[in-house]
Structure formats: C-alpha cells, structure tokens
C-alpha cells in the first residue's frame, strides 16, 4: 500500500519549511512506491528504450501526493526528495551487488544475464556515490546538482528552478562537479 497522500504532503511541507527531520520520515514512505514503480518501468521498457527517470518520478508523485493538493513549489521539492530517494535505492542495490567483487553470487542475484554486466557497473555506481558524499563535504551545492540530474533525471532548467539558480550557473557547476568527481574516482581507483 502506498502512504496516504495527506501524510506525504504534510511531510513535504514540513521539509520545505526547513524541518530536516521530515525527510527522514518521508523517505521510508516514498521508498517502497518508487522501488515498485522502478520495477514496473524496468519490466515494461525494453533495453532499447531510454528509461525515463523523470517520468517514473512523476508517476510516483501523482500517486503519492494527492492530486488536489500541492503547489509547484512542493512539486519541485518532491523531485528533489525523489532524487535523493532514487540515489538511495540505486546505491542500495549497487552495494548489495558488490558481493560480485568478491567473486561469488550476490546477496540478491539478478536473474538475468544482462544483470551480470550491470553488476560490474554497480561498482562504478558505488564509487560515484562515495565521491559524491565527499563532494558534499566541500561543496554541498554541486553535490545537490549532480544528485538532481544523475539520480533524479532533472534537466538543467528544472534544477535551476528547484535550486533557485540561473541555468548558466547550474551548467558551470555541473561541469566543475563532473571534473572533480571524475578525478576523485580515478584517484581512489588507482
């Protein structure tokens, strides 16, 4: 069952008003729904199709938040939250598959040959996540931008809207964040 939209709406409101603790409560509410949707999407889309992260999140948004209830500001926040949730979900999965590095079957072995290739990429995903956490320590804003784009599937314009930045700033910050992350990941790999 999904959470009651009223509760989610209320938590989104609290979070947007600066109640950081609301996020901790929001994620467990949103998580199962997003994961369920992600699975449905994966099942539906053939590998040839591009996976529409934002479409997925949008659907989650429509299902989780009462249709009658939330202004755009909250909607933007929802995307921001959803990006974090997606990050959590994906990294969680990637980490649970890191067992592959040790050479055995993963804790949850994907049941598809395709997934075996993906498991090799899981390590990259985990490395990126670690680097992103480090980046947040020195530059919170850049890490948020990467999170929204990479995990939330938001475009530069949407990120600008959510973070109240100019699109050009988002673009510059993205490029710098990318250079930093790549360098960081290469460093830890070597």
């Amino acid at each position, binding site marked *: *069952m999904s959470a*009651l939209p*009223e*509760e989610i709406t*209320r*938590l989104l409101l609290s979070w947007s008003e600066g109640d950081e603790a609301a996020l*901790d*409560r929001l*994620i*467990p509410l949103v*998580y*199962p729904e997003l*994961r369920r949707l*992600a699975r*449905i999407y*994966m*099942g*539906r*889309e053939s590998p040839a199709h*591009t*996976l529409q*992260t934002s479409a997925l999140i949008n659907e989650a948004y429509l299902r989780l938040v009462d*249709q*009658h*209830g939330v*202004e*755009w500001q909250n909607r933007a926040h929802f995307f921001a939250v959803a990006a974090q949730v997606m*990050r959590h*979900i*994906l990294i969680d999965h990637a980490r649970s598959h890191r*067992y592959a590095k040790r*050479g*055995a*079957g993963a804790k*949850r*072995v*994907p*049941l*598809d040959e395709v*997934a*075996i290739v*993906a*498991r090799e990429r899981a390590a*990259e*995903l985990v490395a*990126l*996540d670690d680097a*992103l*956490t480090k980046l*947040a320590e*020195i*530059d919170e804003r850049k890490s948020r931008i990467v999170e929204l*784009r*990479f*995990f939330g*599937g938001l475009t530069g314009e949407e990120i600008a809207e959510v973070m109240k930045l100019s699109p050009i700033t988002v673009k510059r910050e993205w490029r710098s964040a*990318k*250079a930093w992350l*790549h*360098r960081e990941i290469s460093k830890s790999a070597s």
Partner: protein
Amino acid sequence: MDNQRWRQIDELFQAAVELNPEQRASFLEDACAGDHALRSEVESMLASDSDGWDFVEKPALEVAAALLVDEQPQFAAGDTIGHYRIINAIGRGGMGEVYLAQDERLGRKVALKLLPADVTGDQSRMRRFQQEARAASALNHPNIITIYDINELDGRCFIASEFIEGETLRHRLSHQRMTISEALDIAIQIASALYVAHEAGIVHRDIKPENIMLRRDGYVKVLDFGLAKLAGQHETTNEASAAERPDISSGLVMGTVKYMSPEQARGQQVDSRSDIFSFGVVLYEMVAGRAPFEGESASELIRAILKKEPPLLTNEPDEMQRIISKALCKKKEDRYQTIEDLLADLKELRENKAVSGAGAQVATRKANASAISTSEAVAVSTVSTIEYIVSGIKRHKNAAAFILASLALVGVSLVFSMNRLSSKPRAASREMKITRIPNMERAIHVAISPTGEYITYAEMSGPAKQSAEESLWVLTVAANERVQIVPPAKVEYEGLTYSRDGQDIFYVNDGILYKIPAGGGDATKVLSDVGGTISFAPDGAQLAFSRGLNAEETALMVANVDGTGERVIATRKRPEFLAPDGPAWSPDGRLIACWVGVIAKNGSRTVMGFDPSTGEEKRITDQTWDDVGSRAIWLSDGSGLIAAASQGTEMQIWEIPYPSGEAHRITSDLNYSYSQLGLTADGKNLVALQSAWRSAVWLLPNGDSSAAAPITSGEHQDYRHVAWTPDGRILYASNVGTNRDIWIMNGDGTNPKQLTANAGVNLQPQPSADGRFVLFSSNRANEAAFNIWRMDIDGSNAVQLTHGDGEGQPVCSPNGRWVVYSAGGPNTTPLQKTLWKVSIDGGEPVQLCDKPSSGADISPDGTLIACWYARDAAPPMKVAIIPFAGGSPVKIFDATMTAIHPVRFSPGGQAINYINARPFVSNIWSQPVSGGPPAQLTQFTSEIIGGFDWSRDGHLLCSRAHSVQDVILISDFR
C-alpha cells in the same frame, strides 16, 4: 581540503575551462601567482574535464536498470486478466511470462503464458501458431500439455494450459545426475509425444529441457508445440532473408542454439527429422550429464553442431551409444527417419535392461523408489505443528482474521480448538503465542539467542543518510528492554547470529566475520572472506559458511570457531553458486543444508544438503524459489528446515520437511512479507522480521476513541475518504492493484463492493442527502483534469456534473439539491482553490467564495458552510464558516490546516471537526462553532487518518493507516 581552498580552485577552474586550451596556461600563470599547489590542482581538474568522462551523463536509472529489475513479473497475485486471476508468477523466458492462475469461470488452476508483444504483433504468423498449438493440443496425448485457451485480452496474447506441478527437465538436470533407467523412462515419454505430433504433421522445432516438464507422479509433458515457429527462431523458408535467422549475437538464444539441428543452425527448412536431432541432444545430456556440443559463444556452438562429433559415452550400454549417434547424425538423411523407429529402439533397450535385471542403475532406482515411498509415509503420519496450524488457518478464515487482528496486540495467546481440526493426527490442544515487538521499522538484521531470552538486531540509523550507518542492539524479550551495544557506525551486520552458547554475537562486515560479546564489548575478527550467514556445528566447535573462490566458483566451507582449519566441503561453478544466505548445520551434525542458486534467465534457489565430512550431496527438496529472505534453519529435531523465500510474491515462511522435501508455505498472507528468520535452540521459538502497510476502518461509537474498534479485517489494504450513507453503509476510496476506485460496504465492514472500475482515478465519495447517489471526484473524462461526478448508489449511470479542473471534495446539501465542492486549476493547492456549488443535476456552477477556500461541509440545517479558508493566498489555512449563500466568512477560527481532508460538522452542528496530522499520528480535533480554542476529540497515539465521517446517529468513522515492520516472536512454535 578546506572549503576556502576549494572555492579558489573551483573559481579558477570555472574561469579557465571557458578559455581555449592554449590560453589556459598564461591565465593560470597569472591567477595562481606562484602558488604551485593551487595551479596543479586546477590543472588536474582541467585534465579530468577533458577526459570526456560521461558516466554521470546518463541517468543513474539506466545504469542500474538491470539491477533494479529483479525479474519482477508484470502481474501480481490477485490481478485479473479476463476471467483469470493470477495466483503467482511461475517463470519467465524468451517466450513470455508464465503465471499460475485461477480460471474463475471454470474454477480450475491453469498455467497462463503471456506472449511478448513483439512476437504476437504479426497477425498471420499468430494465426498459424494458434492453429498448430490447437492441433497439437487436440492430439490429446498424456505426454502433450493440454491447451485450454489461446486468446487475446487487453492487447496481450496468452495461452492458458493445464497447470503441471513438477519441475522442468532442465531443473532436474541441473540438480541431479540421472540414472540410465530414469533417462530412458523420460526419453520414451518425450518420443511418444513427438510420435503422435509428427504423425499429425506437427513439428515441435524447439525440443529442449526447458520445454519438458516432469510431473511429480512421473508423467512427462512436452510443452510449447508450435511456439518456436511463432517466434521465428528456427524456421526460415527458402525465400526468407537472413534477418529471420536466429540472432546468435544475443546470449538469450544460447540455450536454444544448443539443441538446434544442423539444418536449423544453417537456417534451412526443417522437418520432423530436426526434432529427432534435438531429441538426441536432450537424450545425450540426460545420459552423459553434459551437453554433446559446447562452445564459448553461439557461433562456436553452431560450428560444433555442424562439424564436431560429440564425445563418446563411457559407462553406458553400447546400444544407448548407438541410438544417440544415430539421432545426432549431421545429415538428416543418415538419422533415424522417423521418431517411431527411435522410440522402438528405446523401448527395446528398456526391456532388455529390465530382463537382464543387471546393473547398478536399476538397483539404485529401486532404492530411490523405496526411499520416496517411505518418506511419503513419514510425511503423512507426522504432521508438523506449523502445518496443522496453517491448515487450520486455511480452513477457518475467521481464525485467520482473528490472528491478523490480534497481531496488533503484544503477547496474544491463540488457542486452537483441535476438534475443528480433527482430521489431522496429533490433535492435541496447542497454544501458540505471538509476540509482536514493535517499532522495528529500521531493523535490517535480526537474530534470537539460543535460549530465546534475547533478540539482537541491527538498525539503520536513518535511511535518509547517504551512507547508512548501522547500530547493534540487544533486546531482553521478557522485559522488552533494548540496549544499544554498538553505536551507529559504517558497519553492516550481515548474517547476524548468536554462538551456540549464546555468549557471542557473530556477524559479517565487508566479507570479514567478527564476533562481539553478547553483552557488548570489542569486536574481534574471526575469519576473512566469508560470504554471509554462518552456521555452527551442533557442538559449537566448527562453523560453516560460503565463500567466493574466484569469479567462477563458490564454495561451502567449514572452519573451527577460532578461524583455523578452513576446508572446502563443496563447490559450485557459475552459473550455479552457493548462496551467501547461508548454510545450516543439521542438529545431528551429519548434513549442512545450503541455499544453492542458479544465475540464469529463470534463475532459482533451492536447498541442497552436503555431508560435512565427505562433501557428498543430498537432495533436500525439488522445490525452487526465486528469492530468499533468510537463512534456512533446521528444526531442532532435524525433521526439516524453515526459511523465508518467495515464489514470485512476497517473502513467506516455508517449511521444508526432511527427508520428504515436500516444501509448503506456512505463512500465506500476501499483506505481509517475512525475512530474517531465527529459531531458538529448542526449536520452540521463531523470530522473524515482518513488514506491511496496513490500514483499516475504525468505528468510534459516539466519537469515543477509547471505544474505537476496527470494523475491517485487513483483506483490503487501503481505505480512505470514508463516508456514511444515510442507510448506514460506508463509502470509501481504495487503492486496489494500481488504481483508486470507489467502494461501498456494510456499516459493520462486511460485504465490500466495488462501484467504479476501469474509469480513471475515483475518489472522495459522498452520498447524496437521499442516499440515491454517490458524488465523487474523477478524472475519467480527461486524465489531466478532475471533475465532480454523480452515480447511482449501485455504481451505475455516472453523470459528469462539472467540467473545470482540479474539482473535488464534493458534499451534498441537506435538501439534496446542491453539491458544494472546491475547484482550482491542475495541481493546485488548497490555497489556490475556491468553493463552488452546482445543482445535483449539473448545470452552471456558482462560486461561493472568492478567497482561498476548500474542504467544505454543510451544517445540518443547511444554512452554513464550514471550510478551510485563508484571507490571502498565504498559509496557514484556518477553519471558517461562511453562509450557504456564499460570501465572506462569518467566523474564522484558530484551528489550522495540517492535512488536506475536508472538515465535518459534528452531528448536532455545534462543532467543526478536522484532522490534525502529526508525524505518524493523526487525531481528530473539534472546533466549537461558538468559538474558543479547539480541543482534541480522539486520543489516538499512533496511525495517520485518511478520512473520517459522522453517521446521522452520531457514530464516528475513521480510516487509519500505518506502516509496520515488526519483529515477531512466535513462542511454542512447535
């Protein structure tokens, strides 16, 4: 690096990166002014920038897509396709998904195969397939699967066929070496099926172990006649282009390539002799335990099929070698020309073997047969406690409902009257106590101490944190006292378990096994390279675990508890692996059960037994699961194992009796999933992690929350927007499956009936004053816009009353003539909505208030409207009263909005009630119309409220929901 320094680097990088590469050097020369460290930092960023790294450019979801898939089937239990109700997913392959389903019309179980859309797109090919499949089914042969129905529903083509309980030949081959008698028996049945098909002019074209089912009673069934032709995989007519040939670059057809005849591999036309070749490959594999043709890639495999002779069989009768060689001739002219000849040779071989009576195989077979019958006898005579409890639950749905209801309480004793379960042996009265240990939302690993006095669990310190930290806790069961023994840290507690003496807690973090004193203290390293869960030998001196040896191989290992004396017990090569979910050492010490998995399209898990001294394998069960949620655990008397595992649905608890292996589910409530099982040393107390989302409708007689009682039992998981009808029934909106619809049930929660279906999202039902109609909000006319609708109380005759956007929260005036509702634009907040009214027959709406207003109710005398209101478009919204005729509020109260649910007048109209939502707790509050501060009406301390309504005679209805993940402790489990 401090932030100041980083800003400097970042600034210079952003400036430099905009310049041409040749300008950058001089720019940096100036800007860094001799700060070499700064310059080299910026330069390394620039170098990194120019690498063209694009990993983050693609959405993460794409990267992780396959990880997330988990082969989640498209339909879930309870979904319906036409008159078929899905029970669970059975499997998935290149030719679609297969489900076990109930044919509601004929009341029988069927296997429902949904064909992929790309295959069924070609109409003429589809028709040919249907003809052929029907023709094969019409042969009505015991070795050919019976097809009930080939049809199209909701744009998906499906085949409904006889449901076969058993396993595929592939599965049997991957788990067990076959005796020659078994192989002959199976081969003769396959050949018999092919014989009648070939006689009728039907070629199978895709004979392979995956398409052959072995029923438990020994019958063999050949599946999928004609399907290969539909898929266009094997047949190419002379004029057909190469595009129709098998796509050998895709690994997915590898399995199929293996069984292709040379003419199929060349893309030539095939006849019945192609089936003979494929049959020969299968026969070879059954007898030899390996495939006759092998190759690293599909093209290598094809080369082997075309050119290579399979390795000669040793230890097999010459006659068998001769039969197989003749079936596997490269030229179809040299092969058996008819399956009839082949069948005759096989039968003769079987008879000769029987007559001679010699050979170890026959003796083995007999021994097997007697073992099976003995174990069956055992299975019948000793019914486990769980089994009879569960069968009791199944037979007495009320009891099940009772259990579910009482799970909400702590420490409820359930006594089953055995008279009602009299058909079962051991019919003594038994008491099973279920203790729920609540607030375990963040527990991820759980273990119970050998005595059952303590439960240790690892808790995530907050899922919002990117790198979730875990803390370790010990709970004293009797006192429900929790002590944190390790504070949150970046440590995982995989495979959490107590030592046999209960003195230490073991866990695996990043592949290293640690132990920590059960009362807390320092963790010490025991062993490296441990896969996950460990299990102790009965004497507690040794432990078993799984380990990845290399990329290809996993091993079941045993070591002394101090980490010395490691040795390998058994190994598995990819695609099989010994799962880290863990070994389980039997109480007599003579067997280690371990989850074994297969990495494959239809990958599965099963439990195998291994002798710890010799490594000899022992079959434990033929059952397979698609995912595992816990270690397998031996029952203390060695009579079987329990584990949490899933077969396409939620994780449930299973019992696998030993040695019969007839696994059965001992929990079967799809609202819950279970994981992290643990058992006390005496086998009496079972611990498990149980999770679910639950909601229920509660009745509060006269609004008294201390007398509140749920009137729904949890069959529905979702209730919101509850409303009384004048005749005392209850309307509500519910998410069932993937849609939200309107339902009605009796005032006592019985007899739920769905009123809307297949017509958009439907919510916020309200009865008309005379109870004839239901008013509701729906986007059925236009997916993007919600409007007010009216339908008859039986769900018929839906009429659209308004045509704007963002219209909802309808309520009927007491005289039955008007519908008051709120309206705004798409995605509007309550702050952007205003109140309107429209005639119950539709027509032009009238705005009642031009300031932000929503969530209305009308006073019993019909003169006032209570609503949420704001003077300007800024929060907070407050409870207010406006005249029914419309206009400015006559009163605005202090009560502020925390949930987007409409307000409701109390039965006498003296107060306005509304939901006050706090984190995870909602209550209904009451604002006196005469003024003064609002007062809390209900005294709930948990759950959130998704809707409420007063009945005419003053009883309050609430829908309440909560997410649960609890540890449950089932005492006197056996």
